[in-house]
């Protein structure tokens, strides 16, 4: 015990950050913690705390630049409550959420272009109300459509440190699957036009005519 304390006893700043985040009712940015503690630089303390809690039943995590403590994911089966706080999302809402997250900022028309159906207004409202999607301004094109993006609450809910953590986003981007159909079409046609013999990349969305070549 005394040995451990000597090694591991946290200093005052670490203790203060730990207490602040334990007491906080919502995730806090490093800046907010610093302001709350009178301007101290808390980054090192945060890193130290995150390391300390690694492997414990409680973890310190960063989600969209905000920090909070949460229970360890592997203990989920012990902690699930009868009354689930999690919203049940319709399939439409789930798809819209994924499209917003992977494409943000994105207009409703762009969401509809990907889904091939009109999106009921209520679907976006559910996501706005959940606090996972926000209005991120307007696109400066004719009609100035409203564009949507995800929120820090979205990242916190799905356990993402940032949008870079979205599952498979790098692969999707590399495969061009986050580009508009028009761009992909143009690229694919150009490729086919340039040389049918050239080996078609796996990411090109090869047209039917060149199925064999790309295979």
């Amino acid at each position: 015990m005394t040995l451990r304390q000597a090694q591991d006893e946290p200093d005052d700043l670490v203790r203060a950050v730990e207490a602040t985040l334990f007491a906080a009712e919502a995730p806090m940015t490093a800046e907010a913690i610093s302001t709350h503690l009178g301007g101290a630089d808390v980054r090192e303390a945060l890193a130290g705390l995150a390391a300390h809690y690694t492997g414990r039943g409680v973890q310190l995590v960063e989600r969209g630049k905000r920090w909070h403590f949460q229970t360890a994911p592997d203990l989920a089966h012990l902690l699930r409550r009868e009354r689930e706080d999690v919203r049940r999302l319709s399939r439409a809402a789930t798809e819209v959420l994924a499209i917003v997250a992977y494409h943000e900022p994105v207009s409703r028309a762009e969401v509809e272009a990907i889904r091939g159906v009109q999106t009921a207004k209520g679907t976006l409202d559910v996501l706005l109300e959940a606090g996972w999607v926000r209005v991120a301004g307007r696109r400066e094109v004719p009609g100035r459509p409203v564009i949507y993006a995800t929120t820090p609450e979205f990242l916190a809910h799905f356990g993402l440190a940032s949008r870079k953590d979205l599952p498979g986003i790098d692969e999707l981007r590399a495969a061009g699957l986050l580009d508009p159909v028009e761009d992909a079409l143009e690229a694919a046609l150009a490729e086919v036009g340039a040389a049918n013999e050239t080996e078609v990349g796996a990411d090109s969305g090869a047209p039917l005519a060149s199925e064999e070549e790309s295979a």
Partner: protein
Amino acid sequence: MTEVDSAPALFGEADDWDGIASAATDDTALYLELDGWEGPLDLLLDLARRQKVDLRKISILELVDQYIGYIERAEAMRLELAADYLVMAAWLAYLKSSLLLPREEQEDPSAEELALRLQLRLQRLGAMREAAARLLARDRLGRDVFVRGAPEGLRIDRKNLWQCDWFALVQAYGQVKARTVPVVHMVRDRMVMTLESALARVSAMLGVKLDWMEIQDFLPPHADSRLRRSALASSFVAALELARLGKAELAQEVVFGPLMLRQVRT
């Protein structure tokens, strides 16, 4: 269907996709699900996945046949189909016939281009549906991981620092005083000759003088102008009153000429 239950069935890997396919043996079961599709593209995507190949390698011709086949059988079973399913069926029929035409007879855009576009759209929708499934399968806050149940909370006590200065204080008091002083209208004394004094003065002077006198001569000679005007008015009224009582007579030879006054002899 909850997102939890549906995730493995609807959003499984392309290779082991079997959620809807297993129902395909029973046509009725499939058609009854038509309401559940999020539009024709959604149905097409599920049909495409049943080819059990990479979405980049699906056979569009086979897909078209499958789609049109289902739509036709649904119509045969007198299931009401939304218009957009029928529009898609018609478009796919056109696409199929174009794809079968020799390449040189095709219009622009070519059928291959249209097919490619459809394929690209299916890929994108498929990618997003898989992404949604992977998102929902993550450790979610409030379902799998939990924040502190009873946080103490961080309180920010706001304290007002009130500001006021000496001048504002004194001025405010002055304004209160000024606003609440009772309003009294005082009319300052003016030098006037009352009708009573004019009557007394005119009758007395008439008794002394026997000849005609101009009314101006009845006024106090050294009074200031405001008193003289008051005296003139009062004296005129007094003259009229004396005339009415038969004690004086008035004469004016021209309009606006001098007003003459004398005692009535009895």
